[in-house]
């Protein structure tokens, strides 16, 4: 009850009660002791009077004696003596047994209690015995008005003899009473000092305790205030409180002022506030909605969907009268405050940027700009080549799509599919690169990145169909790019062919150094696709920061178109390979005492009986066997001992069969190691023999021998002879 009644104020109540008790104690003691002291004073006075009375009795007795001797009237002396005697006797009686005496100071009767202190009792008993002698001596004088000599003489002599004795006793008594009084006074002082000290200590305890508490509370309040100020000033959202009367109360965040460009927030009606920025209909709905939060029957978790202030358009007027449109998100949450009052915490977010970003996201493929960029890429390409490129690319993408579609849902088949898709893509990328189609090549490059990413994931966990979604999305993008090219081509019409072919055929000077203009013209005429490789080499070499020149031989006469495209694929891959891995930089070449310009040669020859030789060589650093070894170890295909034991032939076999790249960085033209695998696939398709000759820092040579007759289609069913990889030196 006590604790529940006073609760957290219990300490205060107890302290105050103690304070009062101490004070009252002192007061009571004070009353009691001062009463005692007053009584004691009377006693002192009475004792002092007894002293006086002793002398006065002696004086009176002497007076009576002398008067009587001279026969004068001694009546007054007698009365005086009798009076003193009685007063002395009564007082002594009262000291002994308690009783009433007349106060010497006021003349009023006062009651005193018997002296109980042993010291006092001892004095009194001596006084009593002496007094009884006084009584014996004086008693005869008390009877009548006539005093005989017999009566006065012994009395007089007795008093004269004992007067001083009695005086000394009464003096002693007076001193005793004084001492007692002093003791009591001291006791009172001590009690007062103790009581007041305790009360004072108590007072200070109360004071310090509550001052401390007050200070803590003040600090807490200050801290809270500071915190909420800090929060409200740094918070990135507009925040304010809304009370039951739809008034925006108390604090709000700085951001709120920034959003609405106003400082007038606190104390405003929500309706008025909203009306400045929103149409009336929205305001009404919003107000009805906000009121729902104060309704008891509502489950506030279930009304968020009908919030009318989600992504609302607010028209905000700036200082100069200019208006700005912002998209805002309001969210509401009910808060119960300390005093059980409920308020709604309203949070306002400016989502304009997000909405703009989304809008931009949709516009990211700005078609016009893309088309302009494409135009510059398409213009130099002969129309027939472009048509073939588009057809090839589309059927390639179709094949990839088909691979995706027909894949069985099993991890083994996923891997096989990825490999086939990677090969298709590499071909497509090669084609695009040769034609200088940055955009398309980039698309295929991204596609390959995605394939690699998925392959990486496949190593850690079982794939499911969803993992291929990024691939399908990139495929769609690549289809779209192709459509874009087609669209641009259709718009251009015949313009490309008629006006710009000669630009393409333009012959840079460095080509003239190698071939006659005539042979170049023939090449361009007979095998335009191959002719493009010349420029492509220049471009790629420039990208890699090396100097290189491509020599083409045996291509001045028309080549069977099927054979041409089979060999072309090989040439492109090997060209990538040479430029990426084979040829050194100019500085490196000069150090090795090689001409700064790297040479790449491609020649196609045949014996007119259908036996062909395709030769590709470069004068670069040669086959980098060590790199392949370390790559095999890095990829945990072999341990280092096994890798060391491998001969060069076996290493080359790895390089061709498994996707190993000796390039550390992947870019559009090299680094994935798919290229050589693709060459291998083509070699298989041609049923050809592949020989590789390489001397470190001198050259690398790829020789592909095969038979070909135009009627015969290459068969992929036949396995290539196992000796098709030969290695010399």
């Amino acid at each position, binding site marked *: 009850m006590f604790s529940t009644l006073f609760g957290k104020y219990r300490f205060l109540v107890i302290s105050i009660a103690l304070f009062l008790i101490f004070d009252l104690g002192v007061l009571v003691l004070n009353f009691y002791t001062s009463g005692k002291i007053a009584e004691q004073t009377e006693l002192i006075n009475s004792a002092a009077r007894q002293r006086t009375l002793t002398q006065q009795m002696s004086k009176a007795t002497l007076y009576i004696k002398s008067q009587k001797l001279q026969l004068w009237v001694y009546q007054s002396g007698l009365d005086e003596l009798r009076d003193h005697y009685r007063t002395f006797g009564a007082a002594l009686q009262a000291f002994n047994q308690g009783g009433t005496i007349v106060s010497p100071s006021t003349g009023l009767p006062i009651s005193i209690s018997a002296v109980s202190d042993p010291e006092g009792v001892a004095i009194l008993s001596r006084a009593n015995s002496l007094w009884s002698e006084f009584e014996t001596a004086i008693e005869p004088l008390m009877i009548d008005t006539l005093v005989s000599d017999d009566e006065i003489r012994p009395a007089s002599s007795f008093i004269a003899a004992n007067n001083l004795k009695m005086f000394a006793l009464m003096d002693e008594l007076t001193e005793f009473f004084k001492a007692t009084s002093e003791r009591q006074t001291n006791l009172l002082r001590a009690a007062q000092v103790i009581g007041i000290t305790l009360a004072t200590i108590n007072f200070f305890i109360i004071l310090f305790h509550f001052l401390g508490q007050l200070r803590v509370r003040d600090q807490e309040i200050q801290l809270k205030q500071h915190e909420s100020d800090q929060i409200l000033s740094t918070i990135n959202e507009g925040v304010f409180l809304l009370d039951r009367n739809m008034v925006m109360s108390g604090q709000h965040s700085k951001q709120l002022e920034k959003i609405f460009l106003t400082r007038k927030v606190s104390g405003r009606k929500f309706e008025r506030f909203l009306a400045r920025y929103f149409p009336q209909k929205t305001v009404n709905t919003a107000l009805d909605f906000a009121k729902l939060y104060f309704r008891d029957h509502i489950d506030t978790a279930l009304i968020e969907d009908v919030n009318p202030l989600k992504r609302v358009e607010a028209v905000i007027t700036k200082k100069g009268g200019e208006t700005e449109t912002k998209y805002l998100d309001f969210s509401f949450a009910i808060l119960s405050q300390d005093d059980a009052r409920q308020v709604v915490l309203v949070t306002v977010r400016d989502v304009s940027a997000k909405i703009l970003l989304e809008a931009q996201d*949709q516009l990211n493929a700005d078609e016009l700009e893309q088309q302009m960029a494409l135009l510059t890429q398409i213009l130099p390409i002969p129309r027939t080549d472009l048509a073939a490129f588009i057809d090839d690319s589309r059927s390639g993408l179709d094949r990839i799509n088909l691979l995706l579609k027909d894949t069985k*849902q099993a991890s083994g088949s996923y891997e096989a*599919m990825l490999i086939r898709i990677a090969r298709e893509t590499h071909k497509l990328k090669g084609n695009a690169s040769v034609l200088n189609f940055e955009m398309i090549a980039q698309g295929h490059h991204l596609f390959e990145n995605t394939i690699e990413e998925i392959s990486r994931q496949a190593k850690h966990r079982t794939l499911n*169909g*969803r993992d291929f*979604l990024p691939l*399908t*999305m990139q*495929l769609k993008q690549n289809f779209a790019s192709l459509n874009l090219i087609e669209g641009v081509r259709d718009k251009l019409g015949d313009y490309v062919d008629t006006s710009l072919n000669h630009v393409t055929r333009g012959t840079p000077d460095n080509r003239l150094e190698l071939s006659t203009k005539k042979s170049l013209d023939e090449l361009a005429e007979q095998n335009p696709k191959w002719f493009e490789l010349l420029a492509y080499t220049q471009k790629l070499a420039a990208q890699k920061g090396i100097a290189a020149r491509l020599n083409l031989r045996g291509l001045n006469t028309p080549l069977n178109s099927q054979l041409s495209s089979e060999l072309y694929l090989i040439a492109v891959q090997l060209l990538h390979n040479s430029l990426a891995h084979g040829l050194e930089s100019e500085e490196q070449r000069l150090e090795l005492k090689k001409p700064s310009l790297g040479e790449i040669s491609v020649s196609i020859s045949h014996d007119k009986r259908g036996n062909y030789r395709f030769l590709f060589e470069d004068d670069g650093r040669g086959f980098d066997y060590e790199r392949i070894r370390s790559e095999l170890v890095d990829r945990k295909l072999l341990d280092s001992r096994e890798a060391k034991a491998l001969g060069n032939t076996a290493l080359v076999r790895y390089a061709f069969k498994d996707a190993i790249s000796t390039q550390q960085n992947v870019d559009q033209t090299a680094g994935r190691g798919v290229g050589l695998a693709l060459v291998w696939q083509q070699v298989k398709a041609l049923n050809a023999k592949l020989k590789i000759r390489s001397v470190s820092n001198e050259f690398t040579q790829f020789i592909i021998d095969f038979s070909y007759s135009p009627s015969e289609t290459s068969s992929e069913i036949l396995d290539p002879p196992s000796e098709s990889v030969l290695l010399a030196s």
Partner: protein
Amino acid sequence: MSERRYIDVFVDGLISYFDHLNESFGSSRSVISSSEHAQRSTQSVDLELGTPYLLKNEATIGMDFTGMITVSGSSVGTVFVSAPRALLKRILLSYGEAELRDELLRDLVGEIANTLAGNARRELGADFHISIPRVIQAPLNTKDYRLDQHCYLLPFRWRSSKAELIISVKDS
């Protein structure tokens, strides 16, 4: 709105539907071990997703019953969920329905689409209007629906019955 997010929302919806199916009706699955649970967080136990591929415009698509939802807003999209009778009957059986009338199959494919739409509404936000699903009971040609030139076909399989989720997204 990125295309990826858009597709993900619907695939998530699909997974959540079949997950829920297992949860409420797969009595044998009432006790799920923690490893199984971890697996389920990425893919439903019985639901297998095939590799997505592209569908060219003017392709005839759809199985026996197709539920269609259209989404409008800053992106316009059409989403079809198409299933053969066999799959729908399996689901109804797992619900404990004894009757397998076509009317109920229609209802069901509508409900699957409904779940996808519900999920999309929650994920994409109020800025998108998502239609009440329509049920089509015939093969349909994509050209009739003003779809994107290439739409995505995401095959899936539930307890060995195949079905398709077809998603077309276009900026409005």
